[in-house]
């Protein structure tokens, strides 16, 4: 056990820090859930890509730097520490990227990864369906194979930022009459294809943050399938759950708001201390965020030693989503009457950061597999309790 960074790691940190100090926009970008904000975030992603900082752990030939996961954690600490913009293309870059890296052909990697790294292609997920949410194996959208292409029909929903994205990736039932996780294929669908209709769904903050996607005889070439026909479930699940969970929400994503929460507390100490439980909650938020960081470094060490991380990674998701709630709820408690103010309100200053975060935190225990599903996974696969 040796908990210090090497010279190379420290140098990498400084390089990232300097670049961010020179390049992070001084003015916060408008939310990427609006058309204007989405495009500004796309431009920011291009800037990161040009500095080979968009996907540091990807191989250089796909636009990355070939860094390991420790370097990536360092990058994230600097990125969030600098208050840099949210990663608009992360569902593609972090979730689909790992899948293509593991299951894609050489041709698919060359075709999709660099444009994903530069955000020339923006990606949306197309997993959930009206009747396949927590019960994801209940997917009914169909993909019929006709020689060199599939014809897809059906409906996907809760597809984040799909109204602005260029591509969607998801699972479709390619074997007629198949049940559950059998007979599914993992397909990449261009969202400008004929027969695709996208209807926005307004999220809690009133923005078109996600959408329904309807497929009406949409033609998708076979080259857009990741893995073999009928192997879609395996492809979607195989990419280490640990990596997906960690990549999606790195520890720094929580350490930074926890740090700001401490400042908010210190700046409003007299008011906050009227309720002694506030100080305790603030300290717990910071300490929990640090624990998540320690846990990430610990797990990365085990991965680097060749250990397989299994279903215990579901615990991470439960932990960070509950931490996010606690951080922003505590901020609301400190802000009191002004916490509810929208960005447009006269008296709103820093408050909007907290309100935005508070709203988004409500979604954490729901997306990426509800926390109830994660608890089932832990109970069944880690503790060995019976499925039924």
């Amino acid at each position, binding site marked *: 056990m040796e908990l210090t960074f090497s010279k190379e790691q420290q140098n990498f940190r400084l390089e990232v820090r300097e670049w961010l100090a020179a390049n992070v926009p001084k003015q916060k970008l408008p939310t990427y859930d609006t058309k204007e904000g989405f495009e500004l975030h796309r431009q920011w992603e291009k800037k990161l890509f040009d500095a080979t900082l968009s996907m540091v752990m990807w191989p250089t030939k796909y636009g990355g730097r070939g860094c390991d996961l420790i370097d990536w954690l360092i990058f994230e600490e600097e990125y969030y520490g600098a208050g840099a913009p949210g990663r608009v293309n992360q569902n593609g870059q972090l979730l689909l990227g790992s899948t293509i890296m593991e299951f894609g052909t050489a041709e698919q990697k060359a075709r999709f990864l660099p444009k994903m790294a530069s955000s020339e292609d923006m990606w949306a997920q197309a997993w959930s369906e009206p009747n396949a949410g927590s019960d994801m194996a209940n997917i009914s959208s169909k993909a019929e194979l006709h020689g060199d292409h599939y014809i897809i029909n059906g409906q996907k929903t809760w597809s984040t930022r799909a109204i602005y994205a260029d591509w969607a990736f998801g699972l479709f039932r390619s074997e007629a009459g198949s049940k559950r996780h059998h007979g599914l294929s993992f397909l990449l669908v261009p969202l400008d294809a004929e027969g695709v209709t996208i209807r926005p769904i307004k999220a809690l903050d009133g923005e078109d943050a996600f959408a329904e996607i309807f497929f009406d005889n949409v033609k998708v070439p076979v080259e857009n399938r990741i893995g073999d026909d009928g192997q879609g479930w395996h492809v979607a699940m195989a990419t280490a759950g640990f990596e997906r969970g960690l990549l999606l929400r790195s520890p720094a994503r929580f350490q930074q708001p926890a740090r700001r929460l401490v400042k908010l507390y210190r700046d409003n100490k007299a008011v906050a201390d009227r309720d002694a439980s506030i100080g305790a909650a603030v300290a717990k938020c910071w300490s929990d965020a640090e624990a998540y960081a320690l846990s990430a470094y610990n797990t990365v060490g085990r991965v680097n030693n060749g250990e397989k991380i299994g279903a215990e990674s579901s615990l991470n998701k439960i932990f960070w989503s509950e931490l996010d709630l606690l951080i922003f709820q505590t901020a609301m408690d400190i802000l009191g009457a002004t916490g509810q103010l929208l960005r447009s309100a006269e008296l709103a200053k820093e408050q909007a950061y907290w309100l935005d975060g508070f709203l988004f935190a409500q979604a954490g225990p729901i997306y990426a597999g509800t926390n109830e599903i994660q608890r089932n996974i832990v109970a069944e696969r880690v*503790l060995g*309790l019976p499925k039924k």
Partner: protein
Amino acid sequence: MDFTFTEDQLLFREAIGRFLSTEASPENLRDIWSNEQAPIDNLLEQICAQGLSALSIPEANGGLGMGDIAWSLMTQELGYYAVVDQLADAAYVGAGLISALPNTVALKAEYLDKICEGKLRLAIGHECSPLVADAQLAGVLLMQHNNEVHIVSPDNVRITPNASIDTSRRLAQVDWQPSDKTCAASGEEGQIIWQETLNRGALSVAGQLLGLAQRMLDLSVEYSLQRKQFGKEIGSFQAVKHQLADVAGKIEIAKPVLYRAACSLENKHPLSDIHVSQARNFCNDAAALAARHSIQVHGAMGYTWEVDLQMYMKRSWALNNTWGDSTCHQARVQNYVLNTDVDLAPSKTFEVMS
């Protein structure tokens, strides 16, 4: 940057666990638990015969020179098998304290040799607690008076036993008089020794609590697979599953916090106090939730003397406020986070403060 343990450290832990699973089986523990007067010497002698008491004695004194990092694995095993206080207090915390005494202390080498051979029972009286564990059976008492370390003979003190809910613990009030003759370290030297001893004691308890939490979880999983209601194992019900999954979550998140604290203590990191208290907070939490959810999963059986759960649960309640009350460790972290102007940026997690 590497959080992992060496092969040797992991194998050692496994061997200790295997040994304790027979020597400190629930049946053996019950003897100690059922009779307040029951001697614990038998168990201790078995353990010392395995060389466990020599673990952290410096190699120069015939020991293995094992540090805090390796002990963070060991203490989890001691907790898992609910091994009585004396082993960790003598072989780990006490050995550390005595090793830190100035070499001018006449008895230092002799004590280290005796711990090594498993022949010295000792008790440590720190001002964080009004009670001293194992004072009744100690051959020597290491007592705090302000910042001074005093070595006191049991002949010169008055010992009043106070029974604990963990009846394997032997707690007592100790009335004694400090004198120049008993003083073994003072001033800045003594202050550093006590600070480090409190941290080591707290870390020892943190590891034991984590082991206890794991034991309670294992017992509850086992019980939920045996016990049937409505024609099914109760472990198949989501309400039960989720309670146990939450315990597993508390245990997993506490581990790296414990290991970082051990690493800090071993390397004399300037934030050792904070890191140790953080470890205690997470391990306390894990053990507290494990106890609460375990008794719930055991149902009415959980409220009986008959099931083994009671020993591990009660020990966790007792240790939760040993080597620093849980409130004291909460306060140390809270004070650091809220009342200093230290920069808490994400990049600072491993940074050594100058």
